[in-house]
């Protein structure tokens, strides 16, 4: 069963949110999502400086089998993207909660987020 990292919060669209300094959060996608997608071969991330809105699409994740929208779990301005996953998207499968992080946002507000327990219960993950 896919691992759900206990220290993170999650959106219904399978993004995780990790609090960094101040109002900055890191965002990635859960192992539940990467398991369902299969091997990820391409990721399209929002540009640094662009505005993202909670619950709206801000990029795409493409696996061998399909293309899925990437939703921002928070509203704010993108401050950083992970250049490594653009070159090596397999990192998102191999380390979704670590080296496979996607982008950071200086968040003004957050969409509805679930605790790890709630997310795992809802999506069949394992804490």
């Amino acid at each position, binding site marked *: 069963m896919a691992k759900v990292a206990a220290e993170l919060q999650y959106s219904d669209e399978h993004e995780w949110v990790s609090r960094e300094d101040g109002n900055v959060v890191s965002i990635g996608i859960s192992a539940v999502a990467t398991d369902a997608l*299969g091997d990820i071969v391409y990721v399209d991330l929002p540009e640094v400086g662009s505005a993202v809105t909670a619950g709206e699409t801000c990029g795409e994740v493409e696996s*061998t*089998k399909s293309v899925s929208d990437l939703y921002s779990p928070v509203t704010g301005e993108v401050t950083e993207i992970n250049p490594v996953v653009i070159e090596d998207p397999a990192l998102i499968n191999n380390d979704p909660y670590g080296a496979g992080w996607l982008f950071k946002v200086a968040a003004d507000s957050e969409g509805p987020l679930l605790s790890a327990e709630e997310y795992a219960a809802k999506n069949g993950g394992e804490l």
Partner: protein
Amino acid sequence: MTENYTALYEEHKKLGASFTDFGGWQMPLKYGSELAEHHAVRNSAGIFDLSHMGEVWVTGPDAAEFLDYALAGKISAMAVGKAKYSLICNEAGGIIDDLIVYRRPADDEGHHRFLVVPNAGNAKVVAEALAQRAGSAREGGFEIAVDDVSDATSLIAVQGPKAEEILLRLVPAAQHELVTGLKYYAAVEVSFLVGGASRNLLLARTGYTGEDGFEIFVENDAAAALWQSIVAVADEGELTPSGLASRDSLRLEAGMPLYGNELSLEGDPFAAGLGPVVALSKEGDFVGKAALAAKKEAGAGSTSGRKLVGLKGLGRRAGRGHYPVLRDGNVVGEVTSGQPSPTLGYPVAMAYVDVAYAEPGTALDIDLRGKAEPFEVVALPFYKRSK
């Protein structure tokens, strides 16, 4: 849709497979990484459960001429022991299914025997069409029997450069030459050591991956034991259980059509590049002949309509089924299958495009959800193994 389970379902569960519905069957999509499974087949070997495929025996004194009537190919010209790729068409020339026909030795009464292998979702339709055609074709009908043994038969494929070496470990030395001497698109009965006991099984050198490889027909009761025996004689890392995801990416690289994607009742064989499979010159009538002759006469797939082509992506984004193909912003075709090619490292797709844009080298775009991505027409297959 009815859920069917193959005799190997428990094996797949033990291996941690994720499952998908395919043609009404719960089939392993992948066991771990589909990319790793793909590369394993190209570089060493993979083992696949293909038990969802149909197996229909057509036997009797008239079996050969009956199949000439029922299918598009000249089946009567097949030598015993050979396999042949063919099509079953309807009267309108539409494709009911693509299938492989194996000619087996005649029985003691001299009755011809053919094993017809249709796709999973079409097995019943094909068996029924064959039975129906046997009675209706001509006065008195054909003296044949149609026996659909799909539900009792499993099919295991071992594909990849190491496939032969691995399978030989289960075959007695006296029969090794039967395997090593088996030609592509041929089949032979071979004695396999299955769970410690000898069992005669039909071994075919056929596949859907673009690699050397085999498909083994086995009764359901011995399927799990055969799967386990093959896995047990392979060395560590030599043989990788592989699911339908890698099967699809492998066949796409090999430029092989998939029924439902490239082939359909609405499509025609000439547009699909399968003109050589249609034996318009064979003696007598066959189902779909008049319509197919008219399509050919009209230049289907050559001077009129659309034609199936390969598209190579110049960027990183892959086209997917049903995405529009564009030329200068105008729709000139549609993608039937597409994804990033794991072996080649660039996106590949098959698409039907207007014949005017079907020449290799033609620059086309695929509409990737509103964004035009550049592709180029290339000859199929995308990937060909070095012999």
